[in-house]
């Protein structure tokens, strides 16, 4: 992280891991079996316990802690779950996860869970479920950032209607520029921005299609023109994708600000994109909890 001039990263634990896998026929990750009762919680708990010992002293629980760690030249981790599957329909686990140190909760991943529909499967619930609405309210109350990555367009509509706070979409691309099941339409991206949120640009570059780092930067140009620089961020999804990425390690993160400056972005704009916008949302959510 330090080599890439990166101060903080939202480190996310995949919680539907035991029941999803890559489908070689469709070339996509999908659920392949139902979880056993309690299985996803136990898995998240055991993996979190193992991770905790390795990142002790790095975890930032508030925006001020991110700043304090930076002042001491120490990279920091903001904890998240990719998919709220480990809730297993139990709302009381949201404050439990907050107690573990989670400050970001991605509602869904590759499994249609108890909260709502996902981008990569035909919808089952018709958007956000009543339990999903309860979780949105609870995360607002606690001061946790909601991550809408992977949610179906209809689920997104429900989350934006229910949430009092801005949300993030940690990793996606504008569908108008990058066709993929995980990309978002202009309307969806604008809706996240209207809520005051931040859209994390996902640095995928599919070699077979000849996509490059320049394409990634051009997509940032597109998103900036569409929603405004205040709503653009970067979400590398480091180690989370089997598709080619132009940021394979955090060392390459420094290429992004350098590339944007070289394209004529003002330093103030670059600062917002590479972290300032996320920090704005983090502050807003943390300060307006309750």
């Amino acid at each position: 992280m330090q080599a890439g001039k990166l101060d903080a990263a939202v480190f996310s634990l995949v919680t539907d891991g035991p029941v999803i896998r890559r489908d070689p026929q469709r070339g996509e990750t999908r659920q392949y079996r139902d979880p056993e009762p309690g299985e996803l919680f136990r898995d998240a708990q055991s993996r979190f316990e193992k991770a905790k010992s390795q990142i002790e002293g790095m975890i930032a629980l508030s925006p001020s802690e991110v700043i304090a760690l930076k002042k001491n030249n120490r990279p920091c981790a903001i904890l998240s779950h990719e998919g709220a599957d480990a809730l297993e329909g139990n709302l009381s686990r949201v404050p439990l996860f907050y107690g573990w140190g989670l400050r970001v909760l991605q509602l869904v991943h590759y499994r249609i869970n108890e909260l709502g529909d996902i981008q990569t499967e035909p919808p089952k619930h018709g958007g956000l479920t009543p339990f999903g609405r309860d979780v949105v309210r609870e995360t607002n109350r606690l001061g946790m950032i909601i991550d809408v990555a992977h949610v179906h367009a209809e689920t997104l509509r429900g989350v934006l209607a229910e949430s009092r706070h801005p949300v993030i979409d940690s990793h996606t691309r504008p569908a108008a520029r990058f066709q993929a099941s995980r990309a978002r339409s202009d309307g969806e991206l604008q809706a996240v921005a209207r809520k005051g949120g931040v859209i994390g640009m996902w640095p995928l570059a599919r070699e077979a299609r000849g996509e490059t780092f320049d394409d990634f930067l051009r997509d940032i140009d597109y998103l900036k023109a569409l929603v405004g620089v205040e709503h653009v961020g970067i979400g590398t999804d480091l180690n989370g994708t089997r598709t080619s990425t132009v940021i394979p390690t955090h060392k390459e993160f420094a290429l992004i600000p350098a590339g944007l400056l070289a394209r004529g972005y003002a330093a103030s704009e670059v600062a917002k994109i590479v972290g300032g916008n996320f920090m704005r949302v983090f502050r807003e959510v943390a300060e307006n909890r309750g």
Partner: protein
Amino acid sequence: MEETNGFHDPWVESRNRPGSAPRRTFILSLLATIMSACGGPTTTASAKREADLLDEAAALSQRISVDLIAHAGPFAPTFPSPRLPEIARRSARICKQGSSMLRSFRWSRMAP
């Protein structure tokens, strides 16, 4: 109007019209830009640009940078990929289907 000896020169004619001075300034600045662009990059200019970028990058390092999602180290996903035996089974199934198709093809050819 200026004496033009019958020669119609819109440039000269426009000189004293209201608003002509800003237009001239604009055209001259445009010409200057084109000429400097035709000259290509100079060492001084590119060195200055590089220095400016370095200054901007240094200023940026004072600001907070955040990756919105990562799975590094202990957070690396562990979702299973199809296991080798499963792939082998699938391949065997495809081969079997292929060979039975081949058999039925031969059969139909051999049938009277």
